[in-house]
């Protein structure tokens, strides 16, 4: 099957981030003093387990970032026509999840829809009953077989996952001797195996109002959350780093101007500033429909803009921290020595100041990540988040919110969105704590042990 690869704006930014990440990893590995704190992170059980969870999320997010447009079967061998729908490698892998849409709500593992409808029975009469699902458990002839089938499929998938997990753990033992990590691998692998195997035949987390599989929606939301959490740093980092360090080092009018700018920005309550900027962006996007050839491209640009806006509103805190630290550093003897040797300001900043504030930058970035993931949900609820057509935790919660009022209640979409978000944010928080502990110079530790 032929296809046309598509690189959306957010994809390009993710690739840029990956390249930057790979480069810094290589750079750090070369230098003993830089890799020391990371080895402390690697020693922490909590950090490694949460890193495992985070990498699983990241894997889903990355697969979901490789976009393409499949070719449509063209009549009489004319020019290739590509579908207007932008798919990702993840969509391809999760094929049945994406295409198996039911008519409307159905509970997890259900065989029937959640509401009664008029259906034709064997005698040709129309009776009110729960209609069978089109895909969920469609291979079963009788409802009583379900529990046994679920157990069998779950066990089979779990066993396959366990096997893969054992192989992986044996492989991983070459690099790490951490037992907690190996146990986590052995726990996660069967779970993933079981869910994957069950998902081919059932809707493991049910379906939503238009019949879409909730598990699929939750997995798709991961990319949106990760992008908000990471791409935003592309904006915050340069702004905060250059302005903060410049304000602290040059002082005088440079300091005054930069302080003025960040006081103005931070004096506006951030939700309001974001709301105002997003409203304006919405007008611009709506006024220029010709910019986008697919709806995915439009939703994507809005996501990138949202990251930009979040970045512009959230760099002030880090900037203030860096300014304070630089004010302290510039009075140090080694900086004064460099100055008296006639080293240029730019060189002092790059060689002496920047490396010494990097731990603050790193700590603040990992701490911000989880806050940004949570903020996305709130902003989407308020109506100033991602595009309503983009699948995200916020749009899922927003759509599912009204279902709480239904009788009987539809709880699974909300529960899945909150559950996935909790796991992601918790892992990020724990990892951030470990990073902070490892990098914070204020914490006393015996360096000889490391």
């Amino acid at each position: 099957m032929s296809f046309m690869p598509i690189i959306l704006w957010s994809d390009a930014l993710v690739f840029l981030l990956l390249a930057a990440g790979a480069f810094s990893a290589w750079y750090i590995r070369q230098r003993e003093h830089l890799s020391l704190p990371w080895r402390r992170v690697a020693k922490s059980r909590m950090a490694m387990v949460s890193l495992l969870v985070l990498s699983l999320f990241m894997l889903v997010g990355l697969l979901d970032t490789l976009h393409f447009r499949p070719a449509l079967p063209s009549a009489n061998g004319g020019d290739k026509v590509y579908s207007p729908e932008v798919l990702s490698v993840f969509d391809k892998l999760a094929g049945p999840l994406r295409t198996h849409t039911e008519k409307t709500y159905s509970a997890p593992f259900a065989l029937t829809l959640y509401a009664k409808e008029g259906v034709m029975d064997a005698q040709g009469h129309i009776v009110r009953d729960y209609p069978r699902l089109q895909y969920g458990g469609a291979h079963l002839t009788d409802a009583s077989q379900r529990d046994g089938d679920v157990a069998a499929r779950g066990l089979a998938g779990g066993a396959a996952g366990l096997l893969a997990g054992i192989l992986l753990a044996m492989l991983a033992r070459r690099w790490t001797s951490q037992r907690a990590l190996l146990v986590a691998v052995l726990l996660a692998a069967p779970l993933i195996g079981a869910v994957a195997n069950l998902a081919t035949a059932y809707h493991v987390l049910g379906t939503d109002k238009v019949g879409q599989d909730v598990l699929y929606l939750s997995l798709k939301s991961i990319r949106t959350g990760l992008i908000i959490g990471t791409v935003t740093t592309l904006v915050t980092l340069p702004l905060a780093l250059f302005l903060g360090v410049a304000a602290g080092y040059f002082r005088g009018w440079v300091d005054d101007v930069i302080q003025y700018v960040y006081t103005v920005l931070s004096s506006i309550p951030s939700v309001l500033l974001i709301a105002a900027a997003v409203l304006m962006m919405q007008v611009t996007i709506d006024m220029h429909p010709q910019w986008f050839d697919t709806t995915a491209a439009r939703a994507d640009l809005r996501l990138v803009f949202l990251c930009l806006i979040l970045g512009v509103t959230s760099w002030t805190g880090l900037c203030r921290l860096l300014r304070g630290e630089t004010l302290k550093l510039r009075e140090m003897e080694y900086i004064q020595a460099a100055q008296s040797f006639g080293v240029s300001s730019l060189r002092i900043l790059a060689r002496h100041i920047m490396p010494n504030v990097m731990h603050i930058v790193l700590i603040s970035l990992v701490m911000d990540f989880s806050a940004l993931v949570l903020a996305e949900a709130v902003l989407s609820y308020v109506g100033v988040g991602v595009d309503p057509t983009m699948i995200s935790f916020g749009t899922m919660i927003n759509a599912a919110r009204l279902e709480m009022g239904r009788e009987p209640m539809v709880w699974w979409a909300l529960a899945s969105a909150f559950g996935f978000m909790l796991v992601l944010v918790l892992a990020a928080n724990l990892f951030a704590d470990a990073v902070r502990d490892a990098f914070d110079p204020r914490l006393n530790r015996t360096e000889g042990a490391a």
Partner: protein
Amino acid sequence: MIAYLIRRILYAVPILVGVNLLTFALFFVVNTPDDMARMQLGIKRVTPEAIEKWKQQHGYDKPLLVNSSASGTGKVTDTIFWRKSASMFVFDFGFADDGRNISREIATRMGPSLAIALPTFLIGLVVYVSFALLMTLFRATALDAAGVALCVLLMSVSGLFYIIGGQFLVSKLWHLVPISGYAGGMDGIKFVVLPIVIGVAGSIGSSSRWYRTIFLEEIGKDYVRTARAKGLSELRVLFTHVLKNAMIPILTGVVVVIPLLFMGSLLTESFFGIPGLGSYTIDAINAQDFSIVRAMVFLGSVLYIAGLILTDVSYTVVDPRVRLQ
């Protein structure tokens, strides 16, 4: 003190001018009033006459910065900037798209917002500080570790979950209080209890952990060791020495939000149907009523700057060494 206050208030003026210019640029330069009119009237098939009419009705038919057709001071005052942006300095916010006076609307909606936000703030402060003191008292034990773990777990839960979960549990399952609504006076109590409890519970994780860090930082200092060496009990040390000395970092984070309580909380108010400023803002965002959003941005920054000044004043109250000149 008075001289200091006057100077601080004067310092606030350039910042507010900056905020004003920023919102002006955001709302009138990035998108022209024509774009806004088209947005409100529907993008397609809108006649230039209809746009002109909409602009005239809402007072957007003037030049942005300089009106060359007017004479005298009218060159400056008969413009969108003067009428819509500069007028906010005297708290004249003009009219919303539905024709209501925004200033009057803000005045009536402050009450309900405060009825939720003030108790949430006060109860929250007491709860967080006590929880943090408890963890500090049992520091480096399993109890402290469990407390921190609980905090991390609680702060990883989305704020939306607390509201939706709380509404479901308390109102729908147990039928203790109405799901949403608001009433003035004593009748209102049943409406505000749940939002307050949820508001307090929502940030117990992050706040308690933050206070714990502050207390732990204090507890390593010399005066604490001296106090213990004099034979004071650990409780005495915590409450009379550590708590008092931790006041400065606590006030730094706390006092600044007090004026912002007037603005209410966007989420809580919209979920519980409280007619405060938070739900006013949300409704304005959904209806794309830019004049209300503009007014709230300006009001928010005024209150924030007031909070900063208040923070400085509060230092003098808790720490006699701080003198404002």
